[in-house]
């Protein structure tokens, strides 16, 4: 087994460390709370000569992603980080990075969007760009944020994928809390991610290419979207393969979804990110009392592992989907995807949607207990799954 160093570190420090170990050629970034310490610590790595990255200090996130797009098209391994208003400001460039099939890796420190202005955790920033064609991985812990960053590099640059990957960690909860984690040595990470060999690189003057071309009438744009969709569909297999290889190397299991107690659970909570820890804690206590409860954490949101989720939930008597973002439609983004994934099942699984924790509202254990209690009532036939609920508001 590989020797790893156990450290006490914040999620952001570990993301910066993982990025340093993946050694991108270019990083173009702009600081924004609670992402700042990622790019700050990375800048120090560059200043100290610990990594040979061209660090581009730009004047905005729009410019950050624009510079990343240019650098990636030129043939570089490129990384950046942002969140919230910064991610929103990158908007049009996100679609360009994905449409041009540029394997950029970006950390997102999940934070609410204004207004009212708020700097704390929720998933409305990343969920807003879930249709941009990026792969999206979520971390529950600082350890997962570290691991996801390394895996994301391999996944993005895989010849069957070649799409940008966003690795998300919960603002402050995961980005700033000091957590215990295991860190691999530089050589191991270097060996795992390998050397990036870009195809169609602008700097290859012997084989000139042009990027950013027009695909207008006659349906060519449509064909490129189909090409993108095929890559996204195929990416699920790559995420699983790279995850399995990483798990073998690190000794830490990886799944596009990760279940706790799901084998014989009658009710379960489906959630994303740091909340999974609270949910498991409550589930453990309820298990001790003999209640058959489970927790299903979605670690890979794009591509969406619909078949895996359907298989995990199909026998359950009641399921709650917890969304840490609003869509102001028929449910939160995760709920809509999960419900769609379950639609084709023979048996209908009663499903309820809770919106929780917006703008960093605390996810207290009693809130999770209440969800399991509601599920227990539904499973027993004492209550019907109701409409979307706000969990924890007054």
């Amino acid at each position, binding site marked *: 087994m590989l020797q790893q160093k156990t450290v006490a570190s914040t999620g952001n420090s570990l993301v910066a460390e993982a990025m340093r170990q993946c050694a991108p050629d270019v990083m173009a970034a702009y600081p924004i709370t609670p992402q700042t310490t990622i790019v700050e610590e990375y800048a120090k790595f560059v200043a100290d000569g610990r990594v040979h990255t061209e660090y581009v200090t730009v004047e905005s996130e729009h410019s950050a992603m624009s510079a990343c797009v240019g650098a990636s098209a030129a043939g570089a391994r490129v990384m950046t980080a942002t969140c919230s208003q910064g991610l929103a400001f990158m908007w049009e460039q996100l679609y360009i990075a994905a*449409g*041009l*099939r*540029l394997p950029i890796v970006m950390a997102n420190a999940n934070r609410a969007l204004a207004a009212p202005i708020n700097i704390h955790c929720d998933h409305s920033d990343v969920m807003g760009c879930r249709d941009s064609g990026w792969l999206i991985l979520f971390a529950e812990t600082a350890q997962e944020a570290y691991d996801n960053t390394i895996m994301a590099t391999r996944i993005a640059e895989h010849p069957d994928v*070649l799409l940008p990957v966003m690795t998300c960690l919960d603002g402050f909860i995961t980005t700033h809390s000091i957590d215990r984690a295991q860190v691999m040595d530089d050589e191991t990470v270097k060996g795992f991610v390998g050397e990036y060999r870009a*195809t*169609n690189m602008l700097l290859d003057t012997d*084989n*000139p*290419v*042009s*990027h*950013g*071309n027009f*695909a207008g009438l*006659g349906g*060519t744009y449509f*064909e*490129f979207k*189909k*090409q993108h969709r*095929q890559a996204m569909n195929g990416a699920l297999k790559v995420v699983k393969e790279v995850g399995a290889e990483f798990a073998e190397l690190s000794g830490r299991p990886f799944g596009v979804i990760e279940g706790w107690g799901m084998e014989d659970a009658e009710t379960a909570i489906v959630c994303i990110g740091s909340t999974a820890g609270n949910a498991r804690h409550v589930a453990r206590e309820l298990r001790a009392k003999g209640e058959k409860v489970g927790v299903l954490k979605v670690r890979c949101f794009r591509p969406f592992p619909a078949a895996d989720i359907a298989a995990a939930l199909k026998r359950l008597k009641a399921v709650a989907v917890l969304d840490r973002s609003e869509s102001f439609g028929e449910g939160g983004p995760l709920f809509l995807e999960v419900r769609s994934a379950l639609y084709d099942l023979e048996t209908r699984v009663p499903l309820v949607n809770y919106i929780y924790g917006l703008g960093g509202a605390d996810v207290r254990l009693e809130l999770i207990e209440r969800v399991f209690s509601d599920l227990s009532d539904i499973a027993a036939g004492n209550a019907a799954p109701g409409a979307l609920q706000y969990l924890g508001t007054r």
Partner: protein
Amino acid sequence: MKWDVSRVNEWTADEFPRGAVIPEGGNSHDYVTGGWRSERPVRDDEVCTQCLLCWIFCPDTSVVVRDEKVVGFDLDHCKGCGICANECPTNPKFGRKAIEMVPEGCELPGVK
């Protein structure tokens, strides 16, 4: 080797280059890109001093030069931006520039 696009209208998603990359350089020679020009540069050879400023400034390399002399414009690629006419210095002997922009299509019958 030239990029073969003869079947482009039949290509499926798998056949297009990934990410809409064009895998060869300088191929705008092969396409007429000046079709939407609304004004066209016209040069008076008698007034022209062959200073070549138009050739230097043209953003689309559409000023055709042979043996160090401007011989005309590549109207297949000229977009009619007028930079050449703008930069063209007034020849004091004639009191005017060698290049002026004229509206496209005005020589057509019935169009003024």
